[in-house]
């Protein structure tokens, strides 16, 4: 198959690889770059397991072609090991039993981080609305919702995850 050379900025570093234009960003990350924190579940935008950030906005990497991300800043979970919001979420997911098989977890963390950074999350309803596009087939969501609420409360008490504006 005919490939093109593609340079992506991923987690702050430029990476060049050969891709076919038809490859989604999720497939480029996983298959070309062996960055497997981004999971691929439904491949049509329904499950949210492949959520990544592009230019500071949460997107589905299965609904964006790799070539469409050229010149943009891509952030995956691999690049967030020192992120203060992820640090809190990682702990509350553990404490509140929000992980079972773990397949949805990377997408849950990416989306929860986006939600906590951009919205005032104070109720279970806020969490369930904000996370409605993330599918988990094990936990029944109760632990995930509790974990995100606990993280929201903790971040409110510190300054780490406060939204920039109301």
């Amino acid at each position, binding site marked *: 198959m005919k490939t093109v050379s593609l340079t992506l900025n991923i987690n702050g570093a430029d990476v060049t690889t050969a891709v076919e234009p038809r490859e989604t960003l999720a497939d480029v990350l996983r298959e070309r770059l062996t960055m497997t924190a981004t999971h691929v579940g439904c491949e049509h935008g329904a499950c949210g397991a492949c959520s990544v950030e592009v230019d500071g906005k949460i997107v589905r990497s299965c*609904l964006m*072609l790799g070539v469409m991300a050229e010149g943009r800043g891509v952030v995956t979970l691999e690049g967030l090991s020192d992120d203060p919001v992820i640090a809190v979420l990682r702990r509350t997911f553990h404490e509140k039993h929000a992980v079972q098989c773990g397949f949805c977890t990377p997408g849950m963390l990416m989306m929860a981080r986006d939600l906590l950074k951009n919205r005032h999350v104070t109720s279970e309803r806020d969490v369930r609305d904000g996370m409605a596009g993330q599918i988990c087939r094990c936990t029944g969501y109760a632990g995930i919702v509790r974990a995100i609420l606990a993280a929201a409360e903790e971040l409110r008490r510190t300054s780490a995850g406060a939204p920039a504006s109301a």
Partner: protein
Amino acid sequence: MKPAPFAYARPASLDDALRMLSADAGDAMPIAGGQSLVPLLALRMSAAERLVDIGRLDALRHVAETASTVTIGAGITHAEIEDGRVPDPANGLMRRIASGIAYRAIRNQGTIGGSVALADPAADWPSCLIALRAVAKIAGPNGERHLAVTDLIEGIFATGLAPAELIVGFDIPKLAPTVRVGFAKVARKTGAFAMSLAIVVLDGADTRVVLGGASTRPLTLAHTSAALVTADAREAALRDAIARDLDTIDDLDAYAHRLHTATILRATAEARAS
């Protein structure tokens, strides 16, 4: 679930995009946010020899406001409308509708122009823009033409766009502050496509009701709209008018009939209370 191979180009200007699309007419396809097209390609329900990426064209992101009209570029995302980053011609209706489209991750990438060009009968923007009497600005090899969104959308995934034409933006008349609007939508879960969505615009003799998700395209309900011109139309009269409108739709079962009636009544109640 992988698309068939295609070539990809990202033109730097609208003119270049139009040239590429007309050079490959029939084989080339524009892609903006890709939130519907990428999965349709992956499912092989759609195919192209070449994708022309129009997602970064400044010409499609033009926003303007006059005393009577708001112009929103086709490349403006649902999230930008949700966040109030463009003026709302309908007293907040567009912001609210934007916030209920799919999920935030999809709203960050999907565009209003793409939604109309796809013409999914259950999508939010076609119904909304028809209710607001929006006019699409369409660029093509022979220059620009203007077409009301209600005339542009022809059926399920079918529009009057020629292969080498692009929607550039929408001119949307501003509602007077006295005009009241209501919106109701029922979906299986948060973010899913609507099973029924109703938009009511109470604007005196120009009152209109648009129903989405019920037929091959959004419907302007003639009987219901007329009944609502009478400001205090009783619910029984309203239900009669709704039934007459729904009777014109093929293959509507009893459940769908009740569902659409409920969304129309709810949108009406909201408009009246606003």
